[in-house]
């Protein structure tokens, strides 16, 4: 039996990360992968955020996912996500984690990218695959679009690095992608 894929989404809890989180959850669902939520109690300014605030925030983020992405045909219990809350500097902890653990895809949102721009080459070196999510304006029409269209719009605008071939096979097996692609052919 093939191993379940692991996706990892690093974030700072004091940044507006809900949209990136929700998209990462949706990707994990479609890939039938586990999602690691990676953060630290230490934020870039050096201040500390209590762990219970982070847990509350993650639960709140999931409320955002339910409101904007939740497909009524999908059971919530199908979503596998696990928080990994460290205490040190997030960039160092993340690189150390990637060196020691198998992570198939790291999902980087623009806010994390701008905070950790110098560490990106090292993260890219350690990660098996990377998805850089597009700028926040790409998420602005989230409520106006059908769920699937929005998910694939964001994927289309993301930058993908070192993704394994089976990623595209998995996405191709997702039947909802055909409805999305068909719209392009209908427009021509």
């Amino acid at each position, binding site marked *: 039996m093939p191993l379940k894929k692991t996706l990892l989404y690093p974030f700072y809890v004091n940044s507006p990360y809900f949209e990136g989180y929700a998209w990462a959850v949706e990707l994990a669902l479609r890939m039938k992968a586990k999602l690691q939520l990676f953060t630290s109690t230490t934020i870039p300014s050096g201040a500390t955020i209590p*762990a*219970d605030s982070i*847990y*509350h925030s*993650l*639960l*709140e983020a*999931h*409320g*955002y996912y*339910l*409101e*904007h992405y*939740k497909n*009524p045909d999908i*059971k*919530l*219990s199908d*979503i596998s*996500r696990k*928080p990994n*809350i460290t205490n040190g500097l997030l960039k160092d902890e993340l690189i150390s984690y990637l060196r020691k653990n198998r992570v198939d895809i790291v999902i980087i949102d623009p806010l994390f990218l701008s905070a950790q721009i110098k560490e990106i080459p090292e993260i890219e070196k350690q990660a098996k695959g990377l998805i850089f999510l597009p700028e926040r304006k790409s998420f602005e029409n989230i409520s106006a679009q059908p769920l699937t269209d929005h998910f694939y719009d964001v994927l289309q605008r993301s930058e993908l690095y070192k993704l394994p071939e089976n990623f595209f096979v998995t996405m191709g097996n997702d039947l909802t992608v055909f409805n999305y692609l068909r719209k392009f052919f209908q427009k021509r």
Partner: protein
Amino acid sequence: MNILLITSDEELIAAIRRDDRKALGELYNRYYKKVFNKCYSFTKKQEEAFDLAQEALMKAFDNIHSFKGESSFSTWLYTITHRHCLAALKKNSRFQFHRLEENILSDDEKNDPTPAAEETSERAEQELIMYSLIKALPERERDLLNLKYLQGESIENLQTQLNISGSAVKMRLKRTREKLNMLYALSITYGLDQVLGQIDLFTAG
């Protein structure tokens, strides 16, 4: 003003059954913190409480179609959460569960918070008996216990809600706990069914 804020839980559930995602998000947002706090009251560990809260919330919202409205949604949700925490206790003795205040543990048991597996199972049974007795209490006493221990309301809030003094709130809680302890002792001696069958005798006045 967000119209959902003035919508009742039952109206939100009806909307959720029509695949309204906003209603789903609103209902979830109303309760996730309380569910987390309830799980934390069992485990006293943030990470374990988060895992249990996630699972309990997912279980409830995946089965929201089975909510019949015989109780309030909050009671239904907290019942699922409570049972989920107890099931985790039975399944995994690595969870350290702490009772509510005024528990009936002996001094030795109070000093040893890490029971062996067989003691953990026995404790789960004890919790189930206590839960059955709480359900059988008069509504006023049950509601007070729910407000204080399930929903985590402070004495100050209860004062305001019930329009009585803080010492009166504490006295009512104390009497109810003492009554529960007495009922528990009777249940152990004569059996839970016997006690539930004659609960009116014990709870009158």
